[in-house]
């Protein structure tokens, strides 16, 4: 019996295994941002401990930074950003600070700069660290206590999760995006279906995806409850990585390719669970409720809470509809929006922006909609501008903003007003996620773009 991709990466990183204790796993890449790190650095300082491997640690500023050209930083955020800067200086951690030209959302810049590599273990104090699994890395989010542990020891004690393979079969219809795959998968799995598991995404439909699409899928793994999602690296992966600043070069690149070629699940390897999703009749997906599992096809309608078998699900659906101000039976296409947000670590990469720009080219944002595009990193912004995408968005009436997490979580000035309804390419439609009282519907970049033009959900 062979091993899974997950088994192989896990086993290659076990520093110490002892009866009754969690395995101690080595961490190859530790990504750091301003929000979840200050308390960890402070504990190191109090204990007089250094950062063990600053050379395997990379910090950026993303959650708090304003994305408007002249928007001031609020004092608390300013203090948090300054704290990150001084911590990075004191502990020797490289920082891709705002204005460096390399800054951006932590899960965009890791892959973009070639830090994220197949077979790595990657952690960050951020649940969307699962994104990096698109490269065949084992990547998962951690809390601040664990951030401290990694800073001090470059390791983490972990119990091995169970394994779940989600195989996407069939050929997708035109206009279906990776976002639709993953929303459909979460709809099937439920938001707790993946708890305690690491997911491997497989199947021809996955293999056909670009790295951007694969990142979108792995990114949202946490929304199905699993801490990490992985995709076996292949030629698409290697082509993406080759030549990126932190990727291996020359002979080291050749050696890396030899190692990476073995990073796949062996025939006959057994998963604890398997799930198959047929994408051949998939429609664009739109969430209607207050978690990402509350999702239906765009041709569908808002469900009746009474249609759910489980009493907890019924209560949750009733609460969600009250919060979202939606009536059961409302066709999704009839729902009007006030705002459109294209961005976030889920969908802010160049391919996402190209897909959205292709939809809006020559059209104009609906007069009652305010729409914004927030590139995932400074390099994505530059590339988009070089391709003229910024002009397409600006001419259509979108705001074209600087890189950051922006309205995905509203920790910065980009937020929804109470009651505003937003079509968003981000990853969470939790109550208040994009601003207290705001109502979020998760969609793909093309649906977000088309919805901005029409003023209601459409393709």
């Amino acid at each position, binding site marked *: 019996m062979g091993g899974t991709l997950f088994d192989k990466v896990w086993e290659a990183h076990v*520093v*110490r295994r002892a009866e*009754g204790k*969690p395995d*101690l796993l*080595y961490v190859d*890449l530790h990504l750091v941002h301003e*929000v*979840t790190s200050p*308390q960890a650095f*402070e*504990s190191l300082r109090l*204990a007089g*401990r250094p950062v063990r491997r600053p050379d*395997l*640690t990379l910090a950026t500023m993303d959650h708090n930074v304003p994305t408007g050209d002249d928007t001031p930083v*609020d004092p*608390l955020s300013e*203090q*948090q950003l300054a*704290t990150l800067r001084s911590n990075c200086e004191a502990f020797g951690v*490289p920082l891709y600070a705002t204005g460096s030209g390399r800054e951006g959302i932590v899960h965009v810049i890791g892959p973009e700069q070639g*830090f994220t*590599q197949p077979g790595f273990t990657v952690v960050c*104090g*951020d*649940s969307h660290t699962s994104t990096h699994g698109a490269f065949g890395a084992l990547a998962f989010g*951690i*809390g601040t*206590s*664990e951030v*401290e*542990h990694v800073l*001090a*020891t*470059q*390791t983490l*004690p972990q119990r091995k999760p169970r394994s779940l393979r989600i195989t996407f079969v069939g050929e997708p219809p035109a206009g279906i995006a990776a976002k639709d795959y993953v929303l459909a998968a979460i709809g099937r799995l439920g*938001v707790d279906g993946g708890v*305690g598991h690491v997911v491997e995404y497989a199947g021809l439909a996955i293999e056909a995806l670009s790295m951007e699409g694969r990142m979108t899928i792995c990114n949202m793994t*946490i*929304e199905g*409850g699993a*801490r990490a999602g992985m995709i076996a690296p292949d030629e698409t992966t290697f082509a993406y990585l080759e030549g990126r*600043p*932190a990727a*291996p*070069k020359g002979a*080291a690149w050749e*050696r890396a390719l030899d190692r990476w070629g073995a990073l796949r699940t062996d025939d006959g390897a057994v998963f604890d669970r398997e799930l198959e999703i047929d994408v051949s009749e998939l429609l664009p997906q739109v969430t209607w409720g207050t*978690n990402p599992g509350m999702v239906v096809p765009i041709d569908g309608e808002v469900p009746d809470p009474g249609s759910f078998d489980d009493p*907890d699900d019924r209560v*949750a659906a009733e609460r969600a509809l009250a919060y979202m101000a939606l009536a059961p039976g409302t066709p999704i296409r009839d729902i009007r929006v006030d705002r459109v947000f294209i961005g976030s670590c889920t969908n802010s990469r160049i391919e996402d922006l190209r897909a959205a720009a292709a939809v809006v080219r020559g059209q104009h944002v609906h007069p009652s909609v305010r729409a914004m595009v927030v590139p995932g990193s400074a390099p994505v912004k530059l590339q988009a501008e070089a391709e003229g995408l910024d002009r397409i968005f600006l001419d259509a009436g979108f705001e074209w903003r600087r890189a950051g997490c922006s309205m995905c*979580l509203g*920790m910065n000035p980009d937020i929804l007003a109470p009651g505003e309804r937003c079509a968003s390419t981000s990853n*969470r439609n*939790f*109550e*208040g*996620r994009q601003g207290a009282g705001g109502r979020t519907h998760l969609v793909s970049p093309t649906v977000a773009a088309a919805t901005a033009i029409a003023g209601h959900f459409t393709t």
Partner: protein
Amino acid sequence: MKAFRTVTSRAVVLDRPDVDTDQIIPKQFLRRIERTGFGEYLFFDWRKAPDFELNRQEGKILLAGRNFGCGSSREHAAWALQDYGFEAVVAPSYGDIFHQNSLKIGLLPVTLPAEQVKELMQRAADGEELTVDLEERSAGGFPFELDDFTRDCLLEGLDDVALTLRDDEQAIATFESAHPVPISTLAG
């Protein structure tokens, strides 16, 4: 980490599934750089409703629905619950990261089958005090599972950074010497 042995208290019932960490502690409070003082912002938006569960009940034990603490990795959620006065949470399941975060700070996350949690919710609603005993591994009389190692760390309130540095320093150095990480440039 705060050591945990046992707690006997009234319990607060929050019978909703999939309570995410954005609700437990909304993002506007994550800009603080301290570990303490988050309790007053616990469930900030939900507490605006007078009939919200936490406005009507008091206790050191929180009885919650399945998948409690899902979503964002923010340890601030566990800090806020602990700072507010909770010492243990009892639920059918948890978001993985929240579960881990809670164990790291000594906020005991007890996992029991859904029907047992519902029964405890009923008993709590009837005014009964519950006991969560880590040494015995029981909550409200129901046995729960937690491995010996994790239990011992909690009972002693051990700092696991110190533990790893004490026990595994050599293993880490040995591993590192045989495990080059091929990152070309991480400087400047």
